[in-house]
């Protein structure tokens, strides 16, 4: 029987693969790596590319990952896959965007009607009216 290693491929949103394999190939930052069972503990960044899992001599499965991390221990290989391409400038832009939106909503506080707040007040007023009506009906 050939040696196998347990492989888990997970992303933040779901589990992608879990099972035994004879070998795992992935595109690491410093070049493609192939991990066989009993590999020394190893951790590396992945670049966008394919992760191939050799389940048996004849069966292979491949997954596309847009980056992430690969962790290797003698009997477990874990791929922490990113769900989207992560680059410093994309993240930066998203951060600025989140900030800008907060500033925007703070600045138009006076001008625009705060709908959610108005709705809450309205709901409260309706409830009060309804209770009053009920009380009045009971009283009669």
């Amino acid at each position, binding site marked *: 029987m050939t040696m196998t290693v347990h492989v888990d491929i997970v992303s933040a949103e779901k589990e992608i693969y879990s099972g035994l394999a004879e070998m795992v190939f992935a595109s690491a930052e410093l070049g493609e790596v192939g991990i066989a069972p009993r590999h020394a*503990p190893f*951790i590396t960044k992945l670049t966008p590319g394919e992760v191939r899992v050799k389940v048996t001599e004849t069966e292979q499965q491949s997954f596309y990952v847009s980056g992430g*991390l690969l*962790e290797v221990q003698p009997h477990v290989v874990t791929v*922490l896959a990113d769900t989207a391409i992560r680059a410093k400038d994309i993240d930066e832009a998203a951060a600025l965007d*989140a*900030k800008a939106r907060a500033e925007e909503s703070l600045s138009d506080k006076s001008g625009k009607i705060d709908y959610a707040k108005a709705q809450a007040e309205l709901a409260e007023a309706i409830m009060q009216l309804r209770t009053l009506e009920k009380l009045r009906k009971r009283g009669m």
Partner: protein
Amino acid sequence: MAVGKEIRTQITSIKNTQKITRAMEMVAASKMRKTKEKMDATRPYSKKISQIIKHLAHANPEYKHPFLQEREVKRVGVIIVSSDRGLCGGLNSNLFRVILKHFQEWEQANIEIDVAIIGSKGVSFFSSINANIVGQVTRLSDMPHLEDLTGLIKLMLDAFYQKGIDALYLASNEFINTMTQKPGVEKLLPISATELEEDLSGYWDYLYEPDAQEVLDILLSRFVEAIVYQGLVENNACEQSARMVAMKSASDNAGNIMDELQLVYNKARQAAITQEISEIVSGAAAV
């Protein structure tokens, strides 16, 4: 005979409301199932990543990452997860109440607070109490993606790196079961040392590519992202189940009101008939 026309219209209108609440209840029930599945699907990632961090903290004690170091707290950051839509019972207000309690404690200790908010209910509440909102993300779908949150989280992580904030908290609802959601405020950063303690026999270290620091940087920020994402997905499941329960009780209440009104209507109708008969009878007697 125009008896109880108003009551009849009232009954019809309540019946229509009940139709709406019942439909919302059913929609929420099916969405709840989906969001719960999604919630369960995110678990393996955060479990794996915290395992690796434990290994790393054990394997590599000489490099101290800022996320793992406690420092004096002068300013805290809070990421608040709220829902975008209302009509979900006391879900958001219960959470906000718990958050405000923490705010009070911090204020008493002279700690300043920065908040980053997910969900428009949170934005409107915290801007009305003039909290210092540094970032916000609203109008997410029921099936949010991690990328929707990365900007917001990066804001907070950068602030932590630059010592703008000294601790980071996550406020969200915990899904216990369909009937119960538990609001809570959880500390994300710095990651406490006790949490990382694990008994590993023998000393070993990883081979790092490109180097330990870079790998650890990515790993820890992914870790925080994963927890916040999980918080959001869990809050979604809470929102749907809270809405389902709220709409169910609304439908029940509508039913009760309808029953009461029907009784009032029947009485009025009967009274009108009795009156008419007695008028006819007394008219006949007079003749």
